[in-house]
């Protein structure tokens, strides 16, 4: 299943922004998707 990044990722400064860091640390384990440094998203187990 292909993942599409929502616009907030771009608005907050892209894949290396503070918002994305917090997302990957706090939210990814909950929803099972992480944002990669290259700006893509992928499923995590």
């Amino acid at each position, binding site marked *: 299943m292909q*993942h599409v990044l929502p616009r907030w990722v771009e608005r907050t400064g892209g894949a290396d922004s503070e918002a994305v860091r917090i997302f990957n640390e706090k939210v990814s384990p909950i*929803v099972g998707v992480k944002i990669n440094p290259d700006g893509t998203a992928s499923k995590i187990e």
Partner: protein
Amino acid sequence: MDQLIEDMLDLSRATRSDIHVASVDLSALAITVAEELRQRAPDRKVTFSAMEGLTANGDEGQLRIVLNNLLGNAWKYTGAHPEAKVEFGITKQDGVDVFFVSDDGDGFDMADAEKLFAAFQRLQGASEFEGSGIGLATMQRIIHRHGGEIWAKAAVEEGATFYFTLS
């Protein structure tokens, strides 16, 4: 951005902390959430109704997140309609109590149903991806933590109904 980060931290706290089970007045919670949504868009003509006296055992903070998301989506996806109806209630399916939130808004193609509860999934026909992209995934996580299930039925331009159970 601050609000987004605060929402993410709230989500993390709410879904990873222990569940404090108590009797929750879901009807009152839904009415409160609906009133907050109405205050944010006072010009919208949305008729909201909630069955009275619906209670469930669960974590009030987490169930509030569920109703916030479900009713927020109902408000959002009826936004293009001059008038809309949103309802919170309960029904029985196979002898099981099933809560629901229904609207008469945009709906969606049931071919997309499997995507609904995965993060960062864009439905067919959606040209943009606003919102956090994690609302339904979050709700599913909370419902599962409560021993329940969540699913939806809809048709394009005929509205959507989200159903959920709680153990």
